[in-house]
């Protein structure tokens, strides 16, 4: 819905009258745990991220520290740390005694302090929230969480408190639109959030709630190089602040780093059998809700994205994978396998589908078999001798890939059919590939139309809030499609079997129904 002058004016009024306050809360046990963890981290130095043992051992601890600082959850909340994780951490300490005896005392201290924290039902963030939202508090009000993953758990906690029940939990993306609040409580240090939360506030009063062991320093990350500057918000601080001696932990260090290699390892462990296939380079994306996905790293590879604007409009379009950035919503099939175009295209082809797919598989399998027997280099040379004009390693891999229908150039396709002994039926193969190609194009168009229709009717606020949304396209026969917000992407590519492209998986290696 387009923004009105009145709604726009509310944004300017918020900015003009906004007051920013930091509330530092204290919990002795949690503070001790966090400092013990920091101490171990500092002692390990680079080893903390380079060594597999420490990476794996530290991950749940870092995550617990973050989750407890990022949502109003009690320290013993089952969502935050599981009993079996504690047992595994304990086993890690035992292993550490023999592998890294110098660090064992520090690791033991961390675990000891963690055990005493997780037994506590204290919830200091919730306590502060209840004091910030008294019975006569101005409305509408909202509580901002950095991590949408924590929303369901936080919601269930807030629902138990009459004063907080009904206050909206929002994600930073929801504060890009025209909705404004009388009061916004921000859980976690200001540096965790995009600048606009504070520089273009959608509330007349912003209260940042954070633990006192985290530095509360904040400044906008960019501003125009010269000219009249906007006034930078000044935060009033309430409660104990980290002393000069302690400095406070850098807010950004509390966010668990994305361990791309660990995510890749999780996928490899789950799909070990498929890793025997030929591999293609893929970009790894971290999606909202601790989901990850590989997308084709080919320069020309595309994926369907939903460009959801804050004014409620959305566009569904194909985007080059290399241009997909954090904040966009990528559309993946979450029920019925990886590629959602294929089943729809098969429906369009009707009773010709099976024959066309059989022919497609036959020449691709024969080519793959040839590569296995003769090697990639020899295959490329053999194709060139048979008239192929683009036979290099990358292209041959692409041609074998089930997602690629056929080579673009006729000369290359003819050379392949000659090489694998299918030249006699080349007419049939060409006709079948043309049929598949046309069906794929129509399928893509059909899905986009149906999707756009659903997106138009969808509550995009919910998409922005949770970072994901399911779409059922029963008419298309494509199963469930899910739009996931992209949270990050790896700087390097990973070799993965083509069958894993576009198939979302749990980045933390928990159960994930595919």
């Amino acid at each position, binding site marked *: 819905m387009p923004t009105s*002058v009145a709604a726009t004016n509310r944004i*300017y009024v918020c900015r003009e009258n906004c007051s920013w306050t930091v509330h530092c809360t204290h919990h002795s046990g949690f503070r001790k745990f966090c400092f013990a963890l920091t101490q171990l981290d500092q002692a390990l130095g680079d080893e903390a991220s380079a060594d597999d043992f420490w990476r794996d051992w530290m991950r749940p601890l870092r995550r617990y520290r973050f989750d407890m600082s990022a949502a109003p959850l009690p320290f013993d909340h089952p969502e935050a740390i599981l009993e079996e994780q504690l047992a595994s951490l304990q086993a890690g300490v035992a292993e550490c005694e023999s592998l890294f005896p110098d660090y064992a005392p520090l690791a033991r201290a961390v675990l000891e302090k963690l055990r005493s924290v997780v037994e506590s039902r204290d919830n200091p963030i919730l306590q502060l929230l209840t004091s910030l939202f008294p019975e006569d508090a101005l409305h509408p009000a909202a509580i901002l969480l950095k991590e949408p993953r924590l929303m369901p758990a936080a919601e269930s906690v807030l629902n138990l408190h009459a004063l907080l029940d009904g206050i909206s939990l929002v994600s930073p993306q929801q504060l890009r639109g025209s909705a404004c609040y009388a009061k916004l409580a921000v859980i976690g240090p200001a540096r965790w959030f995009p600048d*606009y939360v504070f520089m*273009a506030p959608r509330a007349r009063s912003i209260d940042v709630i954070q633990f006192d062991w985290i530095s509360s320093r904040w400044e906008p*990350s960019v*501003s125009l190089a010269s000219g009249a500057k*906007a006034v930078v918000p000044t935060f009033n601080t309430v409660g104990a602040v980290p002393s000069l001696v302690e400095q406070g932990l850098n807010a950004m260090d509390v966010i668990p780093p994305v361990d791309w290699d660990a995510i890749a390892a999780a996928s490899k462990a789950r799909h070990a059998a498929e890793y025997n296939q030929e591999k293609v380079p893929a970009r790894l994306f971290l999606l909202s809700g601790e989901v990850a996905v590989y997308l084709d790293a080919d320069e020309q590879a595309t994926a369907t994205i939903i460009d959801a604007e804050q004014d409620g*409009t959305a566009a569904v379009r194909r985007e080059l994978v290399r241009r997909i950035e954090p904040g966009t919503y990528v559309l993946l099939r979450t029920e019925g396998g990886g590629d959602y175009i294929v089943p729809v295209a098969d429906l369009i082809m009707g009773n010709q589908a099976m024959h066309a797919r059989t022919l497609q598989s036959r020449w691709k399998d024969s080519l793959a078999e040839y590569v296995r027997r003769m090697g990639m280099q020899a295959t490329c040379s053999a194709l060139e001798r048979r008239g192929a004009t683009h036979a290099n390693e990358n292209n041959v891999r692409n041609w074998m890939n089930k997602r690629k229908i056929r080579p673009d150039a006729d000369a290359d396709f003819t050379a392949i059919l000659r090489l694998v002994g299918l030249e006699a039926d080349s007419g049939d193969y060409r006709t079948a590939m043309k049929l598949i190609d046309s069906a794929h194009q129509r399928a893509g168009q059909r899905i986009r139309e149906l999707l756009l229709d659903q997106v138009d009717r969808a509550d995009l606020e919910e998409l922005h809030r949770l970072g994901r949304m399911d779409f059922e396209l029963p008419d298309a026969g494509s199963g469930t499609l899910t739009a996931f917000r992209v949270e990050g992407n790896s700087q390097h590519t990973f070799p993965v079997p083509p069958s894993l492209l576009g198939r979302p998986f749990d980045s933390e290696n928990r159960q994930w129904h595919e």
Partner: protein
Amino acid sequence: MVDLGMSYFVRGYFFNGSRYCPVPTWVQFYVDAGAGISAASDPKKRLVTAIAAPTRAYAAALLALGVVIDSSATNNGIACLDWIKGLEIDCPVFILKRKPGGTWRAKGLYKGSYYRCIDGVDVPYASIQFDQAGDSLRELPFSMWDLIQEADFPIASMPKKETWYRVAASKPFIEHFVGRTVAEDLMTRSLLQCVIVGQAAALESELLHTEFAVEVREHVVKGNLQDIVRARRFASTMAAFRSDVIPVDSAGSYDLSPPIAILDGSTAYLKWRHLFRGSDRIIVLDRADRNFEEAVRTLNDEYTLERTDELDLGLGAAPAGVEVMAFWESVS
């Protein structure tokens, strides 16, 4: 420093769905800024003005209003009549006829120009066909070329017989901003004074579907921003235009070089910044935009690498959360 003079939106109101409310100061700021930027224009160099705001809503539309108000008063558009000589044969044009009772307009096809020697002086003439068959062909001397306007109607829509349409009279709402004479000119003469690159749907809503009003001699007269901004994209083919809107997700090319290009949003700047190299540019950056930081970094690089001088636009106190940076670049 640019002298802005008085504010253009004094005694202005907007309709909030149930009643008229006085326009907020930020509305006036953007209109005045658009006018100030237009007034500062210098053909020897190009002005880049970046505005970072808490929201992009209405900023570009109001800036365009200021640009059109200022440049209409100074006739600052692509108005040089030489453009007529550059038209292709059979290019559609409008021809105006001014009479005491009002202004009339006809569709025509440009059939070429030539020189005729009159009293030893070569006078350019343009040949215009007023009907489909070519039975009605007239020669217009250079002194009447200001009555010829660009048009983009399909040739098939040419009337069988020469037909003149009455042009709607100007509205008091328009006259409030630009005065009666300029208002009539706005209604009848197309000039491209600025283009806005942005989200077409949002701009359409802001320009066409937001009701404003101004107080004129104790009467309230209503209108919308499109009455003055006259974006060609949202106007009928027979209406005179002063600006155009280009959807940000369109192909990324535009043939004309308007005096001012308004890049509405980070994506518009990042995608379209290489175009309009001969135009002054106003860049509106929404702080809540996903690409805001990238756009600011790119813009700051442009400031560092291409700035020849800075400019104080003298806009006075900007609304809270608004940052303005203006600098000159050499014409490339």
